[in-house]
């Protein structure tokens, strides 16, 4: 049996890694993957709490997050492909036409 605080610490680290990735990565696909990391940290949290509380609703929540995350990645990739077609680049820091 793995103790709950360890799992929570793991998920907090995973989430932080995701936040770092979103802020530091230039490639849009990498940003998408970093966001996936954050969502998976949430899933780890929910499943850990759910198993330690012996209560199902957390796992149901996690299932919905998995489904929604898949849809989000689909939308994100579509937008990235669109960006690539018009700009020949998917670096997010080059997306800077609009300011202030």
């Amino acid at each position, binding site marked *: 049996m793995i103790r709950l605080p360890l799992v929570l610490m793991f998920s907090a680290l995973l989430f932080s890694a995701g936040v770092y990735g979103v802020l530091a990565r230039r490639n849009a696909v990498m940003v998408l993957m970093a966001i996936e990391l954050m969502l998976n940290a949430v899933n780890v949290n929910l499943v850990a709490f759910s198993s330690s509380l012996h209560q199902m*609703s957390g796992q149901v929540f996690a299932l919905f997050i998995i489904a929604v995350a898949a849809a989000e990645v689909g939308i994100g990739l579509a937008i990235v492909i669109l960006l690539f077609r018009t700009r020949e680049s998917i670096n997010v820091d080059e997306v800077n036409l609009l300011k202030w």
Partner: protein
Amino acid sequence: MNIDYHALLPEFILAGTILLVLVVDVFLPERAKWFAMPIGLIGVVGSLAGVLSLIGAGTRESFGGTYVVDEFALLFKGFFLVTAVVVLALSLRYFREGGFYQGEYYFLLLTSFLGCVMMPSSRDLLLLFLALELVSAPGFLMAAFRKGDVKSNEAGVKFFIIGVLSTAVMLFGMSLIYGVTGGATKLAEIGVALDGVSGEMETLAFAAILFVVVGFAFKVSAVPFQFWAPDTYEGSPVPVAAFLAVASSVAGFAGLLQLMFVAFAGQHEFWVPIFAFLSIATMTVGNLVALQQTQVVRLLAYSGIAQSGYILLTFALVTDDAASNRNAFAAAVTYILIYGVMNLGAFAATVAVSRRHPTLGVADFAGLRETAPVIAVGMAVFMISLAGVPPTGGFWGKLLIFQAAIERGGTLGPALAVVMLVNSVASVFYYLVVPRQMFLRDAADPSRLRVPALVTAVVAVAMVTLVAIFVLPNVFARLAEISTLVGLGA
């Protein structure tokens, strides 16, 4: 598992319409694609009829109390569906002439509105998350709908990354709340469970609340999480910007109101200072940056940010006193609804001008009194109302918030009221820029602007509504009174 089918009727009608639009679209020939709009319009009106049939039917619960249809929910559902009618009316000509994928657009737009309609009824973390996603996910695609335009692509990318990031932050907070409360996901249960936690768990609960607030702060474009909004609005097609500025942000507020006033009400001592800061920063930065804008959609975006600041102010007024909380809540609801009407009107007028001047600089509004008198008068009324000057509805909205702030007492209430007053005065300067162009400058091309009848009708109705709110404030004050949220300071 009890399901009240009558209470869910508006959602069912809207969902059915969405599927119908998609199926009809794939079988329509290219030149008849616009036909998706009247189908959607009929569906929205049907859904609105469903909402009207529920008025006075009392509070109705479905799915074990996680989906509640009460007066608060009905008020917002009605507002969102009327907004849907308006945005559909604004879209028809714009998307027909622009050569866009029309069927997909109406499908996405209605899906977003389904999320909006679900939001005020969702009384469970999972449902709030699903409703929020349903609002924003189609929004990402709609923002990028001008596929060949680099600015529109940029709008889509920024909106997508910020939208998904904010959802992830909010979800992390929700997952912690689930753990801290020992497995509560219903808002009312969370409120009870959070009152019982102390010590280290309370610290964790505060962290969770902070995560959720930051997630929503992105959605309602509060400073310092506002930078995506002007870029996204400017790059999107104008009707989509209208949708994002009105429906999407009001849906965010509908969710935030429920979370703060029901689930986290007991922790107000922790989050009231946060909201006070957010509110002051949001209105000040929004107004200051708006002063320098020369593009009308960006001007409206920054004005929207400043308006978000006024609404956030009501959250900072929460105390232990239930009566005073109800005051703040009523002020927030009234202001949100009035804000929706005036902003929608301003965007409608902008759509009308965008046919001749797609870049929508402030100077493009010059001489509108000659070229399109109804639009010009309407736009002037919306701008005056947004500034909070009588004789318009915006005046009552601001007065209600001001009153609630004064009545809260202490040092915080009056201090916030003063900041709001100073900001309102400053905002008059940029709100009058557009009317000055319309009435004091002459147009380069004095021929009449051809405005679609639907757009003129929207502008006229919104204008009349705002003046009517000023003349008959009691009718609208009652709207907020009846919208008592279940579990609010009972």
